[in-house]
């Protein structure tokens, strides 16, 4: 699907690629859209679980939580660019329900970022849309690499995104220090 875009992919192609029969396909899914939704949900659930697991493993300060979440998200995208492309690039065109679900998924970052306001004496005065926009920056960065098939370079975006998010709450010096020194490195298994 990543090669052709959702609209161009037929059920025929899916069953061929997956080496399953039409019968098997339709036993699991009513339609191409249903198949996509299942793929989409499982990718989102999997990533959300990984993120939660890493956050629950040990309580860490807010800036490190942000770093861990961005790291996990980027790792998940780099590890499986085909699925990532389906979720991040194709989802908005599949249908209103999937588009809505994608918007919700991007919103998952909002409460995490928003907690940064408590670390800023003027946190309450920050623009109401700040977290939505920062989440937009994160997903745009993934999108724009996926679209041109250069997902490996997404790694270079971790410090960029981390600095952008931290700067909004902690100011430039603190953000730059943490983003460049403490950015968690990629899991060796994926390197």
């Amino acid at each position, binding site marked *: 699907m990543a090669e052709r875009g959702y609209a161009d992919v037929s059920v025929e192609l899916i069953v061929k690629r997956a080496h399953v029969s039409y019968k098997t396909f339709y036993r699991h899914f009513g339609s191409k859209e249903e198949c996509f939704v299942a793929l989409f949900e499982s990718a989102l659930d999997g990533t959300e679980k990984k993120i939660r697991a890493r956050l629950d493993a040990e309580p860490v300060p807010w800036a490190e939580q942000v770093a861990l979440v961005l790291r996990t998200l980027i790792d998940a995208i780099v590890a499986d660019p085909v699925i990532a492309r389906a979720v991040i690039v194709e989802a908005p065109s599949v249908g209103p329900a999937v588009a809505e679900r994608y918007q919700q998924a991007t919103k998952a970052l909002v409460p995490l970022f928003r907690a940064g306001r408590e670390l800023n004496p*003027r946190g309450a005065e920050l623009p109401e849309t700040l977290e939505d926009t920062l989440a937009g920056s994160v997903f745009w960065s993934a999108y724009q690499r996926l679209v041109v098939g250069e997902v490996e370079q997404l790694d270079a975006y971790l410090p*960029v995104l981390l600095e952008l998010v931290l700067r909004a709450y902690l100011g430039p010096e603190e953000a730059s220090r943490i983003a460049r020194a403490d950015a968690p490195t990629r899991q060796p298994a994926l390197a």
Partner: protein
Amino acid sequence: MEVREGEGEGRGEGPGELGPLPGGHHGLSREQILESQRERLLAAVAHEVAARGYRATTITEIVKFASVSTRDFYELFDGKEDCFLAAFDAVHDHVAELISTSAASEPDWPHQVIAALRAVLGFFAAEPDLARLCLVESVSATPRIAIHFREAVLTGVSALARGRAELADPDSMLPEAESSIIGGAVSLATRSILAGDTEKLPELLPDLADFVLSPYLGAGRAAAIAAS
């Protein structure tokens, strides 16, 4: 659906022939007619895509809305994707011009950024079909269109990077920061359009100005300029 009267030239005509135009003595060359048909087709693809989404839009509906024959459509475009991209590029050129015109009269970089944001938000608020075409449908219509969308967004990078002159150390910001900043700003606009708030896009100006300027000017100065 609106079908303009008296503009059905070319419809149903044989190859190489041109149907009668209203009045008969219009004095338009074949090139001029094609140009006017091209413009109507671009407006039509924007209208149809905004109404039903890229995937559900057919060439039949586009040519019907534009009152252009299918034959003439294919003389101008290879297909739906080509027609969509032509509309996208036309809007992008127009927006780029709006940005440079509006920024030209501003005294400094922060005010140029604000003027550019104001112009773009105002334009898309007044043109909801084009807003949908450029900021919603183009994101994932086809792989080729998505690459166009990406490139169009990234054309703002160099103008934004001029803000690095405001920093004590221009290299203190990581490369690629501009892409992430612009992408976030565009995503917020897209989110508003999806929520049905296209006409309220100009209300995003203070927040977006703050978001775009604060990495360069610091939160305090950016907020003050954004609010002014």
